[in-house]
């Protein structure tokens, strides 16, 4: 079965990203496909490589990056939400004349259409948020 996952909150403040991660992992373990994980609202803050959580805590962003690498997951950060909140890749950096970028490995920035497309193509869309 094809799943799409929507994550609406950032790391640490809300459990949403953790729950989405565990659900995604469990779905993959059962042999399902996860066609896209879409990060919207404050969820875009999962996609920064600049976090340094305490050593005895989980690393939310790296965990997503590693899962994406292992299972070839498509982690998409919404461009409009990312612009409001300061999540930037190289293209966005150039386009908005910023002096740095902060996107994490395995994440890409794209439009809201990717969420709609995931809703159309997936058998199930599961949302995690606040």
């Amino acid at each position, binding site marked *: 079965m094809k799943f799409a996952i929507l994550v609406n909150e950032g790391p640490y403040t809300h459990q949403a990203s953790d729950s989405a991660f565990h659900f995604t992992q469990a779905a993959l373990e059962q042999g399902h496909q996860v066609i896209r994980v879409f990060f919207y*609202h404050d969820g875009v803050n999962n996609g920064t490589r600049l976090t340094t959580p305490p050593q005895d805590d989980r690393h939310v962003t790296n965990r997503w990056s590693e899962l994406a690498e292992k299972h070839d997951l498509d982690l998409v950060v919404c461009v409009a939400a990312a612009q409001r909140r300061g999540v930037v890749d190289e293209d966005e950096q150039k386009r908005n004349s910023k002096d740095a970028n902060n996107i994490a490995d395995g994440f890409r920035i794209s439009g*809201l*259409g990717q969420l*709609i*497309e995931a*809703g*159309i193509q997936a058998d199930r*869309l599961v*949302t995690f948020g606040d």
Partner: protein
Amino acid sequence: MSEELQSGIVKKFLYINRRAPHGTNYAQEGLEVALIGAAFDQDVAMAYLDDGVFQLKSGQDTKAIGTKNFSATYRALGDYDVKLVYVERESLERRGLSEDDLMPLVYEDEDDDWEEKPLIHVVSAGEMQKIISESDVLLNF
């Protein structure tokens, strides 16, 4: 658009709005999804319940709090081919509101000589149950 989208799958998208506007921007960013989604040739409906009914309150003016007054955008829903806007009656009543308090949203019916018709349908909780259960993709804001 990608190959799969040419395949002609048409699903019923329901945008469920349960939060007040302005205190958070879920309402605004939810509306942005609905407008983008309108380009995808899917069946689209909006549902307003709980504090979400406040999103449609007439007379909103954000000048004094300096935020973007996106409430004008609701009037564009009809132009984006969204023809069904459901509002739960119980949610209105618990908040001391009636349909008269809501923005008068309309669309032009191309099948009826472009007559202006109301977009908003006030429905009971029972009807809302059915609308939710008969949709294919549920997006919550």
